[in-house]
Structures are given as structure tokens and as C-alpha cells.
């Protein structure tokens, strides 16, 4: 774990850059997390994904299935990867301040 500055505050992240405390997340943190994912500016489509993920996580304490994410936000899988090149799990979930998804590839 390490402390880095995100959104103007000191935030604890893991070795893959996922924040550890969901309560520290805000839009400024999200913007800085996005830069670590190669997304310099979060546009409306990015925020649509991020907000859906965050709302779902806060309600159900888990990330949504990828198909549900696509259907509810109206993006195809390819469009999700165009917006977040690391993908919905490691890219979009990170920017949305969700916990790191697990499992090896």
C-alpha cells in the first residue's frame, strides 16, 4: 500500500492503484485516477459509466456484471474498452473508486 495525492488529498492506494477507502472518492479523485488509466479528460460517456458503477456498488456492495453494465448504460463492450482501455473491471471500476476485482488471468 502507499499514499499518493489524488484530487488534492492524500489517498491510500494498493499496488495496482485502487483506492482503499471508498469514502475518500470524489470527482477530483476520479479525474486523477483516470489519468493513471491513460484517460486525460473524463467526458460525459466516461461519467455515465463511472456513475453507474459507483451507484450500483453503493447499493449492492459489489460491481455489476459486465453485461448489465453494458445494457444499463447503453454502451457496447467495445465502447466500454474505448472509454477505459483497461476494461470495465480494472479501468472503469478503479476510476469509480470500487475495490480491485480479483482473479488471475
Amino acid at each position, binding site marked *: 500500500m502507499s499514499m499518493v495525492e489524488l484530487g488534492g488529498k492524500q489517498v491510500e492506494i494498493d499496488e495496482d492503484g485502487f483506492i482503499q477507502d471508498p469514502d475518500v472518492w470524489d470527482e477530483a479523485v476520479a479525474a486523477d485516477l483516470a489519468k493513471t488509466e491513460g484517460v486525460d479528460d473524463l467526458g460525459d460517456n466516461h461519467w455515465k459509466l463511472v456513475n453507474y458503477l459507483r451507484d450500483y456498488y453503493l447499493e449492492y456492495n459489489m460491481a455489476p456484471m459486465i453485461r448489465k453494465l453494458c445494457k444499463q448504460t447503453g454502451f457496447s463492450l467495445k465502447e466500454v474498452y474505448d472509454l477505459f482501455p483497461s476494461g470495465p473491471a480494472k479501468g472503469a471500476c478503479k476510476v469509480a473508486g470500487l475495490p480491485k476485482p480479483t482473479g*488471475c488471468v
Partner: protein
Amino acid sequence: MDLITVTREEGLRFSVELRGHVMTTDMSVAEGGQDGGPSPVEYLGVASGACLATMVQAYCDARGYTDGDVSVSLTLELVENPNRVGGIVLDVELPKDVPEDDREKLKKMALRMPVPATLRDGPRVDIEMF
């Protein structure tokens, strides 16, 4: 079915040979490899997507749907305990002249195509150590 042989190259990178075709598999850097090729689990996604693309393209070719090619985008949903693939999510792009009723038919047929059907039924996995 031809024999498939898996031979270590270096570290966690393996060469996979089948009928004269050679593929490479490796783990990501984060997982202790050098990312010299797709991981073994990623090949599961490769098989799923390629099977679907092949079978759907053959269907379209047979019916003369030629306004574009079939393409597939997919990803794997990973789960724990044990670490494994929990879901395979595939988007299939069809030629533009495939009518709606054929699209619905293809969606139903897709789950009966060889790789998806294999994964749904779960093959017997028989391992011996020497």
C-alpha cells in the same frame, strides 16, 4: 483430435504446438510472467470468440449475407475460490443485411456452438501426474 504439446521456453512462457501450428502463452508481468503471449485463461476467451465468429460467419456465408463481416468482441469475468472464469461476455457484430429473425435465431444457436456448448456442459477434465 491431434496431440497438443506444451513446452517451456523461459520463465512462465510456454510454446504450444498443434498440427504444425505454434502458439505462445505467458503470464502477465503482474502475475510473474513477461507478457510474452496471451495467458492460458485468455486462450479460453480466444477459443470462445473465434468459435462464435467462425460458426456465425459460416451461417452468414451460406445464406448470402455479405454486407460486412462477422466480428466478435469479448471479455472474461473472473471470480475467486478457486480463481476461474465466472463469465464470458461476447458482443457479435453481424453483417448489416442479416434480418431480425435470423439475428434472434443466431443468438439461440450460439449457445449450441462447439465451444460455448462445451463450457456450458462442462467437459470431464482428467489429469495424471508423472
